Every structure is written in C-alpha cells, then in structure tokens.
C-alpha cells in the first residue's frame, strides 16, 4: 500500500514538473533551421559535384582526348589504328 502511494506521489511530482522555455526564441531558431536547410543541401550537393568531377577526370585521365593522352577513352573507345583516320589526330598532324 505504501509502495503504491510512493509511486502515485512520484507520478504527481512528475506531472507537476514544468521546465520554462522561451517560445519566441525557439520559434526563431526553428525558422532559422528551416531556412538554412536548402542552402546547406545546395552547398553539399555543389561540393559533391565538384568532388565527383575531379574524381572522374582524374580516373579517366583528363587528357584522353588530347594527343599523347593515355586515358581510358583513347585506350578503349577511340583506339585509332591509323592515326590519320582519327579526326583529332589528323587535325593535330595537319597542324604540325
């Protein structure tokens, strides 16, 4: 019986607890977080795009399309057997 009363007292105490808060300040903070989100997302996306671009250019060798480039494009896609048949190389050769 006494134990039950102890529990009931505890519940009453917990119910009566109130923590003060500044609702206006909290509203300002919520608004700031809501308005900040898209900008932050945009920034993260921009960074991710730049990082991905740098990564891809590095991986595929940015000079693949240029004479002397040994990237994956020149190696697997173009593979010009006859250098003069390759329009880029032909242009470079003519230019030289």
């Amino acid at each position: 019986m006494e134990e039950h009363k102890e529990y009931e007292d505890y519940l009453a105490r917990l119910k009566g607890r109130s923590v003060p808060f500044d609702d206006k300040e909290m509203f300002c903070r919520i608004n700031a977080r809501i308005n900040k989100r898209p900008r932050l997302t945009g920034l993260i996306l921009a960074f991710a795009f730049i990082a991905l671009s740098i990564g891809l250019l590095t991986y595929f060798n940015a000079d693949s399309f240029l004479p002397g480039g040994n990237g994956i494009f020149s190696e697997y896609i173009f593979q010009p057997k006859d250098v003069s048949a390759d329009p880029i190389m032909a242009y470079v050769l003519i230019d030289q």
Partner: protein
Amino acid sequence: MIKVEFTEVYSAHKDFVWRLTSKYIFSKEDREDLFQEIFINIHKALPHFRGDSSINTWIYRIAANTSINYLKKQNRYKWLKNMLNGLKIIEEEVQTVEIDLQDFKPLEKLNPQQRMIFLLFDLEEKKLDEISEIMKIPIGTVKSNLHRAREIVKKEVIENGRA
C-alpha cells in the same frame, strides 16, 4: 487537402510538445534540439496533411515518432560518445541542468517506446486507443509496453526511495 499555417500550428501546440519533450529528454541542449526537430518535421509534413485524423493526433504522432527516433539515435551512438570521452578526443558534454534530475532517473530505464507510451498514458492522460492511433501500433502492444514500463518505474521509485 487542408491548408494549415505553420505559425498557427506552432502557437496551438508548442506547449504540449514542450511538455512532452521536457519529460522525454533530460538534458537542456538535447531537449531544445528535439523540440526544434519536431517542428521542422511538422513544417515539412504540413503540406501533405490530408485531415484523415485530427490535427492533434497527427501532431502527437509526429512528436512521438521524432522523439523515439531521436532517443534511438542517441542510444546507438552512446558507446561511441563514451569511448571518445574516455579517450579525451571530445570534451565531455556540459549539460545545463536547471531541474532536479532525480525524478527522471526511473524513466531512464525505459526503452524509447516504453518511455513514450508511459508519458502519453500516465502524464498526458491519453487513452489506450488514442495511443494506439498516435503510434500506429496495436492496443495489445500499447498495453504490454505500458504494463512493463510501469513495473520498471515502480521498482526504480521504490528502490530509490529506500536508498
């Protein structure tokens, strides 16, 4: 689709959301963070509110789900925080305590779902079927969680009272 203004929702429900968060989370910083997180989620979900349930139930649902997920996330990284604290890699969090934490000690023993059900039933005085609707779980699960939560709290209260 019902159009509801966010400011209206905030003014009408801020007090109960604060009451709930202040009993659900005990550190000042986390409590404020959770409170803001709940209203950010409400803001995000507001355009999709269809009015299937009452706005009160809908807000209770968002508040309950956000709180449970928040606490689960905190518990998940507790070991990492403790480890980093031990290694002195991060400074120990200074928690501003403006209330006596002794009364919240028994609630710490409850898991996130039990804690929410306990607060909704015993402090917010919600009915079992309302809690079932808010949390989208069967009434039987609400009952068993509430029973278990009460047993744990009772045990803790009695043990602490004797200590």
